[in-house]
């Protein structure tokens, strides 16, 4: 009963926030609605006892991805008029994607054998069951190669992103901080012993 009440409360918030992402005129408000979406879906995951995934969702998407997103949105001066110019031209594509997504969701929900009867809630797991341990065991034994491949892919992506954005112009006056840190007083200041001027 309590689980059902919590589920419908948070599901409603999730839907409202999701609509808010699309319809709000201010891009910062849209980004914040998306943050709310992530938080409420994390709560829904907690309800089906997937606490590891829920916390990682908050940690990665709310804590890191959306912060950077918000950053960019705040810095850019987004012209809403320009964005809306192609609205009618691309509307058919939007409708097509919507139809496909809706069909997919309905297809998953109708299939009873996937066990997606949301109204019943999850089967309670034993008290000593640890989500993190189970996931870790699966990832590092059965799927070890897949995990390593994904890690290498991410590393390649990072290096690619850095090498694409790291441009060195000629004649750039950059600070060499390690040289600054390594500097000694004797490199900068010379103490000169002088004889005192005679009093006139």
């Amino acid at each position: 009963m309590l689980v059902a009440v919590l589920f419908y409360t948070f599901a409603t918030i999730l839907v409202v926030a999701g609509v808010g992402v699309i319809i709000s005129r201010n891009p910062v408000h849209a980004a914040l609605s998306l943050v709310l979406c992530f938080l409420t879906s994390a709560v829904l995951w907690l309800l089906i006892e997937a606490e590891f995934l829920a916390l990682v969702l908050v940690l990665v998407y709310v804590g890191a991805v959306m912060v950077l997103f918000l950053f960019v949105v705040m810095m850019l001066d987004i012209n809403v008029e320009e964005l809306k110019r192609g609205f009618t031209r691309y509307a058919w594509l939007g409708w097509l994607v919507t139809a496909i997504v809706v069909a997919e969701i309905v297809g998953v929900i109708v299939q009873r054998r996937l066990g997606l009867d949301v109204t019943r809630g999850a089967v309670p797991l034993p008290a000593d069951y640890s989500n993190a341990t189970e996931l870790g065991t699966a990832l590092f034994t059965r799927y070890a190669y897949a995990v390593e491949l994904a890690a290498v892919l991410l590393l390649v992506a990072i290096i690619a992103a850095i090498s694409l954005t790291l441009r060195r112009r000629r004649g750039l006056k950059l600070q060499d901080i390690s040289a600054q840190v390594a500097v000694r007083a004797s490199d900068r200041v010379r103490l000169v012993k002088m004889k005192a001027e005679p009093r006139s």
Partner: protein
Amino acid sequence: MSGVSNWLATRWLALPGFAHSTVFILALTLVLIVCVAYLTLWERKLIGWMQLRRGPNRVRLFGIPHTEYIGQPFADVVKLLIKEIVTPARSNKVLFRLAPAITLIPAFAAWAVIPIAPRFAIANVDAGLLYILSLTSMGVYGVILAGWASNSKYAFLGAMRSGAQIVAYEIAMGFALVGVLMASGSLNLGTIVDHQRGAPFHWNLVWLFPLFMVYFIAGVAETNRAPFDVAEGESEIVAGFHVEYSGMGFALFFLAEYANMILISALTSIFFLGGWLSPLDGYLPAGSAIRHVPLLGLVLGDGTHWLAAKIFFLLCVFLWLRATFPRYRYDQIMRLGWKVLIPITIVWIAVEGILIWFRVGPWRV
């Protein structure tokens, strides 16, 4: 007398679980708020002594003699409460009001999983460490929103600085905690403390010393404290992200900053200094007579007081840093975070892996 206490005890046990939690939450929040109030006073006094000044020395507690400066926090609170709250023109009103609350809530909510006494936390969550990480990563929203909603250049600059800084240092913090995870093999904070049992030699501090340093430095940077306080940077951008806040709005940011300091100190003591474990743990055998001396035995044994003492020590280090060091330049902060702290953690995680493989050290894996 025993009849009354018995009656109270049965009444207490008969209450449902959520009533217990509510009472604990209220008690802990009250204690924390009082601690924050007196931490502000202690900061001003301690830094005053370090810099050969007196610090606050005027407000007595209800005019009682010999209580100089004890009443200072209450005077400050009353002053801030009766001040006018100014909302800047063309600011985003809703977000402007919401931002202080968003900064404050994670700082308090994180205490839910902290083991404050032997084998006791308000919520004994198995993934407690992840919960802490995800909550502390949410604190940055308050700062960014405050800077953006104020519709002020200074505030916006402060918010941008703070956002970039927190994202950078969070990575170092997370990696340092990976080392703690490897040492104890659990995400549960209570288990992490239990795994450091034995003697101070078994504390994570000894075997994970580089990670301890990285975690604490990153913690100072995360709370935007000196010497990493460019987000406020009085000399450049007035007061940074909270420049437009007055009265209680400002007080909430202040409260959040100090609550975060206490939280980081508590987490550092739990992860690296053995939490509520007594430093005499390994030197007093379980059956020794000194453990049964009425008061002394309690003081020398494990308990909340040891956690409080460790937190207090780390808080003093926070204040010491502020009294001693000049502010970092912004590019130096970024360099320290990305090019010094993160490589140190990665190297030490590898070293720790080798140590665990060859079973050198007190690992219980």
